[in-house]
């Protein structure tokens, strides 16, 4: 059962200097189909367009970011709705109540000069008709207790909490309206291992209680291995491989995915590992054919000119590479 889908989505940053337009092709023809109640992981290097993709999925498209082609559909009341055709006020209603977003870097989410409870107040007042402060405090406390967070954080300022606690408060804030879809952008980056574990534990708890769909973006394959049901590998604005988590780890097909999986060190194994050679391409001026060919050791002639298409070559396993199929994008 699909809950969110995109249709050849292209969202570019259009920069104009002295009348000359430049395009940063951050999301370049992405087709996604997210199922109800699944945890979908998006993996890729920094600067591959992950954050732009989820901003677009969340409908946060403001210049210079522009939708060039395609659109995003949410399934609301059994109907697919094109979110970019909605009025601003309808979109505002959907946001947080239907779909919510956990941004990266919790320090900049919570207002540093007010207590945490005020952030919750601001948030709830915008969505519910609430008059007194007491009316707010009770459901917030219940929500925090259900998530196993101490309620005393409500009377603290953000700087008094540790990074991990702040991030968990942000997660609590994003899920208080019980949204159907949660988008988490690098929720564990900049936290140490124990705190990462805490945040992921919390997200999984929420998912098992509220039965929501989670789209989690991170470059940490360890996190994906632990939480995601399905993974999409993103490279230079495109999804280049997509499969169930176990399949991605055990049987990666795309040369880039192979590097990504093969370079992960593991305790108990000291054998030599290498990362992909070279550096990620610039999205302003990506290679003409397959985006990965300059770094690929199996690059062929057609890779230079033509762009491989993401196609299903095995049940539930899609890959965009000429090694497996000759189909290309127009």
């Amino acid at each position, binding site marked *: 059962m699909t809950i969110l889908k995109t249709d050849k989505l292209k969202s570019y940053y259009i920069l104009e200097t002295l009348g000359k337009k430049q395009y940063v092709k951050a999301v370049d023809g992405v087709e996604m189909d997210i199922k109800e109640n699944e945890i979908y992981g998006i993996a890729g290097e920094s600067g591959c367009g992950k954050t732009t993709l989820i901003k677009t999925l969340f409908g946060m498209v403001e210049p210079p970011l522009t939708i060039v082609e395609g659109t995003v559909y949410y399934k609301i009341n059994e109907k697919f709705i094109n979110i970019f055709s909605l009025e601003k006020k309808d979109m505002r209603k959907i946001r947080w109540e239907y779909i919510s977003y956990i941004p990266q870097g919790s320090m900049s989410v919570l207002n540093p000069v007010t207590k945490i409870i005020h952030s919750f107040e601001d948030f709830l007042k915008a969505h519910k008709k609430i008059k007194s402060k007491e009316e707010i405090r009770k459901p917030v406390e219940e929500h925090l207790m259900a998530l196993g967070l101490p309620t005393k954080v409500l009377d603290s300022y953000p700087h008094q909490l540790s990074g991990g606690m702040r991030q968990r408060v942000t997660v609590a804030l994003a899920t208080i309206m019980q949204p159907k879809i949660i988008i988490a952008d690098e929720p564990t980056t900049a936290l140490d*291992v124990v705190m990462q574990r805490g945040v992921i534990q919390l997200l999984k708890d929420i998912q098992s209680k509220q039965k929501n769909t989670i789209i989690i973006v991170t470059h940490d394959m360890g996190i994906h291995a632990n939480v995601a049901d399905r993974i999409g590998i993103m490279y230079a604005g495109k999804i280049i491989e997509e499969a169930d988590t176990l399949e991605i*780890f055990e049987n990666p097909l795309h040369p880039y995915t192979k590097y990504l999986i093969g370079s992960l*060190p593991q305790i108990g194994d000291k054998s030599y590992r290498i990362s992909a050679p070279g550096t990620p391409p610039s999205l302003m001026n990506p290679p003409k054919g397959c985006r990965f060919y300059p770094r690929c050791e199996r690059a062929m002639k057609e890779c230079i000119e033509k762009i491989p298409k993401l196609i299903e070559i095995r049940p539930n396993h899609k890959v965009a590479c000429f090694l497996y199929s000759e189909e290309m994008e127009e």
Partner: protein
Amino acid sequence: MKNDILKVNNLTKIFRIGNIFSRQRLVAVDKVSFEINQAEVFTLAGESGSGKTTVSRMILGFIEASGGEIIYKGKSITNIKNRKERMEFMKDVQAIFQNPFETFNPLRKVENYLYETAKNYEMAQGKEMDEVVREALDAVGLQLEDVRGKYPSEFSGGQLQRISVARALITKPSLLVADEPVSMVDASLRMSIVNLFRKLKEEHKVSVLYITHDLATAYYVSDKIAIMFRGNVVEMGNVESVLLDPKHPYTMMLKESMAEADPKKKWNKRIELGLTEREEYLMKGCKFAGRCPNVMAICRENEVPDFKLDDRIVKCFLYK
């Protein structure tokens, strides 16, 4: 024969926190001792707020130690006042920092950093300078031509981090102090940095003090490891024995919390998250008592001594 190049004895750092009315002493680093041998990668691991960065800053001389001593190549460097000696020490011990985008000034060309280091430490003069820089870049797999004339924004994080390793290598140091060198680098490029440390150790006999919270790369690269928790080294020994068969309950939890890149080894246990850092620092006995599954009455009251267990040291009453 002893071939330790750096020896740290009972190193302590006390910060005073609070205002004028309620002063508290926070022992950020509590009698930490370890030694690093030649051509050895030594890892200090622990979560944030465990004091591992404070240890490295004391070794580098950025902050003064409150107690204990640091012995480098047989000489105490705890309080070098002499400028010449200081320079010599700095030439031999170089640092690599966490965030490569902050290491380099965005408005200056990166090559300046390389040439300036060569000039400040009088490694070469005139035309020979190019040669020194070229050699250092070569060790990290970069060409001088790739770097010349470029600003930090023109490189990826992984490349910049490699350049900062190259900069550190210009003085031909015996010890590199690398504070979380890969945590800001993409997972896909991480191994290029970590492999560099392995290569430097094997080919150039450089020792590395590797500070990290990532146990997987620590296992991959290091010979010995010390696990820190709230200012104490709670377990120290060979990396294989400590990480494959951890003895201290904290090391076990740290290993358990790691997200292993293997979907077949998903987390199944739940973990306890601690009080705030400050509360744990101010605890009387074992700092881990609040979260430890095996906590005993003795742990909460008494300071824990080090216990020797085979080839390692464990700070836990379970092994009395």
